[in-house]
């Protein structure tokens, strides 16, 4: 029996008193930083499905890839979002590194599709697809209304912080991409006035949403880079062309229209959205993904992850160049 399985058998009875044995333990695809595992438990009642999420390879260190809040804080914020009615998996139990299988947490398994490409093309979703953009607007408005006064130790990152952070990564990569320089220049010149800070999910996009064929969005995943910031960051990240999975004419995740999302958000929050500001953040989001692709090359070279998909994502950086050109020079 693997060490992971053995340790899990020790931990599970702490929150599932009817636990009998582990029927299945399988690594779920996706998640380039933290790992997710599906767990099927035999219990004295019926079988129970869970997801165990932990630091990569069970190392103590939090992922160096994108996390800056730590995996246990991710569980805490998901708990908070759950209490405020946001569709997220319920958190059952959080573990620290003392078990030797990394830090992590156990959460509810929600049924549905998560792979962006399939969500855009799968026929079983054709009835629900038209409502997804509206649901995105409603969910984002809920996330952005979560009171932040009692949150401590949460990083704040507004447009200028984001620009500085990603410019540093771009400079470190040390290979000039003039389109990126042009985008950085434009973004600095047009930084919006930061009038309000809200909780920001930080990675709200097609690929991090669980889509149920009947109910639509049943869960929002991957909260590991949540922070305080500009709510438009979330509204625009999901519109970045890379998350439309080649369905360029449906800007919201490749499944819906911007206006459907905006109108639902406005109705639910009572706030009027500024479309120009949304475009600003879409440009910033596009550039961010381009720089993240470059960073994948660094992660490969560092030896942290020598996989073929890690290194080849580096060549996806050019997709953001053509998108930036369209947004900045053509439209």
């Amino acid at each position: 029996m693997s060490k992971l399985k053995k340790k899990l058998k020790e931990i599970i009875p702490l929150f599932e008193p009817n636990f009998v044995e582990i029927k299945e333990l399988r690594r779920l695809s996706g998640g380039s930083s933290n790992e997710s595992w599906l767990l099927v438990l035999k219990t004295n009642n019926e079988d129970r499905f869970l997801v165990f999420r932990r630091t990569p390879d069970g190392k103590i260190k939090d992922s160096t890839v994108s996390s800056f809040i730590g995996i246990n804080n991710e569980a805490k914020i998901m708990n908070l979002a759950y209490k405020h009615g946001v569709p997220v998996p319920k958190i059952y139990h959080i573990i620290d590194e003392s078990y030797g299988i990394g830090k992590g947490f156990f959460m509810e398994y929600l049924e549905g599709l998560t792979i962006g490409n399939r969500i855009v093309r799968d026929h079983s979703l054709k009835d629900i697809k038209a409502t997804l953009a509206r649901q995105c607007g409603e969910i984002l408005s809920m996330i952005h209304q979560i009171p932040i006064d009692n949150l401590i130790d949460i990083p704040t990152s507004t447009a200028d912080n984001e620009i500085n952070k990603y410019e540093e990564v771009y400079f470190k990569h040390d290979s000039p991409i003039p389109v990126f320089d042009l985008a950085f220049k434009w973004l600095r010149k047009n930084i919006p006035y930061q009038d309000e800070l809200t909780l920001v999910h930080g990675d709200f996009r097609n690929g991090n949403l669980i889509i149920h064929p009947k109910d639509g969005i049943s869960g929002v995943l991957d909260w590991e880079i949540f922070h305080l910031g500009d709510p438009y960051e979330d509204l625009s990240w999901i519109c970045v062309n890379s998350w439309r999975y080649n369905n360029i004419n449906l800007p919201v995740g490749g499944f819906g229209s911007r206006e459907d999302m905006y109108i639902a958000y406005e109705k639910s929050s009572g706030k009027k959205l500024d479309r120009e500001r949304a475009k600003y953040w879409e440009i910033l989001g596009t550039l961010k993904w381009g720089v993240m692709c470059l960073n994948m090359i660094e992660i490969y070279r560092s030896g942290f992850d020598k996989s073929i998909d890690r290194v080849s994502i580096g060549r996806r950086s050019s997709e953001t160049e053509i998108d930036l050109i369209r947004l900045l020079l053509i439209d």
Partner: protein
Amino acid sequence: MKSEPSIEELLQAVIEFIENSVIPKLEGHDKFHAHVAKNTLGIVLREIMLLRDYDEKEVARLKNILSKEDNIKELNKLLSEKIRNGEININDDSLKDHLIRTTMAKLSIDQPHYSGYLKGKEDNYPSDSET
């Protein structure tokens, strides 16, 4: 020296092997990685066939914009600097033409099926690509 079969033929044979004999036998994570491997060799193949011509045209444009002789990396570095410090206006027409052509060329190697690239072709962006 010119050895046969050509590097393009060798790569094509490996790509077809992965596609027809390897991918159908794999599952899950391995299948995904085999797909990535196949696509990665596609990038290599296209770069071998297209890059030299693209680079020549890119260098010629850069020399024209910057009025300077140098290699492609140094010229790009200089262009980046001039964009940053405002010496070149980001609305300049020859800069715009250059950036669009260079980016369209990159995409025709990196991801010729990407929606943003296909839209560029559909909307007749200036391009050095013949396909």
